[in-house]
């Protein structure tokens, strides 16, 4: 009786020297996603060693981290960023790799475009030189981030040299409350098990609260598995999965579709499968989450307060909290709802899909961004998400409220392009990391869901989206 992880592992196992639990094994890779930041050195060494990619059509490339989100027609200003993007273009052209270039409408964040194109399919092993590759596990894939040496290894051999993880099941049962989203589930889990809680594990999310999530929500959740320390997060295939994939450009068609679906339906843990660890959460108990510190585990609910390190006995933990509060410029016991913001960022591979934008727009509609907010940004996850949103008129809702509506990319999630926080600025962000300096040197990040970011934009401070009483214009 197998877990989903075991099934995926066995399906891809090419070679192993021993059956010892932690022994290294060669795992076949079906899909290799590539972006500009972690690939140039891999392509260079590959070339120096006189090697070629093993299977070019397994690779899909896109530039996302460095691309500007405005004024694209003028190209990339920063010469160093430009060189990195040009290098990717050149490598892909030379080797015949499919790449969505900056002006292609299909361009976007690598973890948004893979599923959007149907390039991520159930049962695949998916790798990318990017830790948030865990996102693709939403499709019952074994998907994880790898380093640049491993990017080169997969290019050259179509295999990854790795060892088996332990398995963890996180069951979320019941029904989510109003205004509570997949992002809140993810943050609540991380708050519970910690950022190292999943280290060494592959997590499978189960339970009716998970099954009732859309694919977008499932991607948000699996995306954050890495923030819980797990290399991979995954969710079993069901009708929602299959519905989402149907008709996408890279998805199988006709007879192959039927054949694929029959196989995909087997991609779930057997009922009596045994996990190394199980964690259970009640969906009804999850409140909208807001992080207050410099690690995603430093999180509380919208009704909560910033913690007081004085009450913490463990010296290491106390120091961590003190350091975080100093960096974040927060006083102990401050109610979360009284924290005022400077900037709002709706975007990133966690929360920039159409459903995220629809949810945020619903909160924003007919309202105005508070006058104290210096900048409120919406950065769609891909050109196609942007197009779809514009067809639905969401861009108008955002811009009428005072948001800026940008071109797709990673943007202020990590501030490698021009979108960033200045020193001391405080941001409600739908991204995944609140590390020191992540959104710009000295910038202060609070992670929230898209609806909570939208509500904060209107109120100027954090507020429970269900209690936002700002009037709407007709």
């Amino acid at each position, binding site marked *: 009786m197998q877990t989903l992880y075991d099934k995926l592992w066995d399906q891809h196992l*090419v070679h192993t020297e021993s059956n010892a639990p932690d022994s290294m094994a*060669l795992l076949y890779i079906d899909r290799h996603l590539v972006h500009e930041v972690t690939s140039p050195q891999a392509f260079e060494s590959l070339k120096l060693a006189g090697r070629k990619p093993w299977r070019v059509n397994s690779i899909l490339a896109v530039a996302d981290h460095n691309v500007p989100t405005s004024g694209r027609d003028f190209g990339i200003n920063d010469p160093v960023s430009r060189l990195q993007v040009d290098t990717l273009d050149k490598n892909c052209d030379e080797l015949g790799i499919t790449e969505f270039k900056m002006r292609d409408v299909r361009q976007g964040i690598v973890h948004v475009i893979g599923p959007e194109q149907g390039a991520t399919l159930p049962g695949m092993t998916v790798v990318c030189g990017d830790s948030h590759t865990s996102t693709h596990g939403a499709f019952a894939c074994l998907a994880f*981030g790898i*380093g640049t040496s*491993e990017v080169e*290894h997969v290019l*050259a*051999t179509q295999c990854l040299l790795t060892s088996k993880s332990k398995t963890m099941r996180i069951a979320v049962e019941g029904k989510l409350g109003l205004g509570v989203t997949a992002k809140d589930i993810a943050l609540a889990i991380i708050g519970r098990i910690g950022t190292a809680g999943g280290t060494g594990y592959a997590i499978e999310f189960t339970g009716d609260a998970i099954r009732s999530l859309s694919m977008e929500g499932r991607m948000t959740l699996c995306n954050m598995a890495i923030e819980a320390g797990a290399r991979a997060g995954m969710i079993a295939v069901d009708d929602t999965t299959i519905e989402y994939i149907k008709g996408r450009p890279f998805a199988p068609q006709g007879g192959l579709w039927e054949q694929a679906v029959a196989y995909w339906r087997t991609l779930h843990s057997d009922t009596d499968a045994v996990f190394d660890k199980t964690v259970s959460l009640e969906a009804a108990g999850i409140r909208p989450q807001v992080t207050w510190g410099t690690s995603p585990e430093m999180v509380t609910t919208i009704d909560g307060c910033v913690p007081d390190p004085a009450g913490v006995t463990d010296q290491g933990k106390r120091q961590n909290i003190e350091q975080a509060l100093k960096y974040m410029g927060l006083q102990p016991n401050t109610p979360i709802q009284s924290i005022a913001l400077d900037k709002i960022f709706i975007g990133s591979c966690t929360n920039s899909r159409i459903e995220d934008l629809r949810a945020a727009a619903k909160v924003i509609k007919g309202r105005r961004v508070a006058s104290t907010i210096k900048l409120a940004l919406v950065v769609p996850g891909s050109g196609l998400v942007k197009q779809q949103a514009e067809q639905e008129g969401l861009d108008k809702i955002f811009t009428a409220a005072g948001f800026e509506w940008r071109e797709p990319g990673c943007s202020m999630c990590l501030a490698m392009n021009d979108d960033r926080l200045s020193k001391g600025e405080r941001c409600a962000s739908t991204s995944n990391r609140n590390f020191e300096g992540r959104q710009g040197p000295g910038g202060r990040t609070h992670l929230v869901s898209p609806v909570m970011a939208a509500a904060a934009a209107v109120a100027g401070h954090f507020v429970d989206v269900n209690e936002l009483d700002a009037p709407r214009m007709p």
Partner: protein
Amino acid sequence: MKHWSVPHSKYLIMDKFQIVTGIVVPLDRANVDTDAIIPKQFLKSIKRTGFGQNLFDEWRYLDHGEPGMDASQRQLNPDFVLNQPRYQSARILLARDNFGCGSSREHAPWALQDYGFKVIIAPSFADIFFNNCFKIGLLPIVLNGNILDQLFREVNETEGYTLTVDLQEQVLTTPAGERVEFSVDTFRKHCLLNGLDDIGLTLQHADKIREFEQKRRKQQPWLFV
């Protein structure tokens, strides 16, 4: 590990990991993430080298660093542990839980190595970072919290404190002669000791990979269109 253990000059790529004796520097902070190890503005480089001067950039310097700046002209943060005179030319980094969490950037181990580190010791590491270290010949060692507390104490108390790390024997030795054993995966140890290129080793299995691929093509043809 019979198939993987054929040392052949063709597969030698990294420097062989020799016994390391070096100054130890204590970084007493949990959850040190890869953004802290090497901030993103330096990831724009398309090279593998030169990251050492920007290791821990935001903690190490008082001014904000950008690529292309001359590090010798920048103002060091005297409070940051790496800048203290007693820890200059350190080769071994002592760290706390969940070291290297965050992004998969190999630039983080590159920066540590480029700075001069050969060994990182912590009670736990993030998975991807841990993996990446081995790939470039940097040795991450997991030690339990109590021993680590002891090492932190000793380093703080003793100027010029060094450790000797013997990978072959899997043991570290303190200045007082105390021996602490550590574990390491057999295959990874073998690669480090011999400086082996695992791509070359994997390609020894090329036939097996091809065979696997053909079988897969038959069973799941939609993956190959």
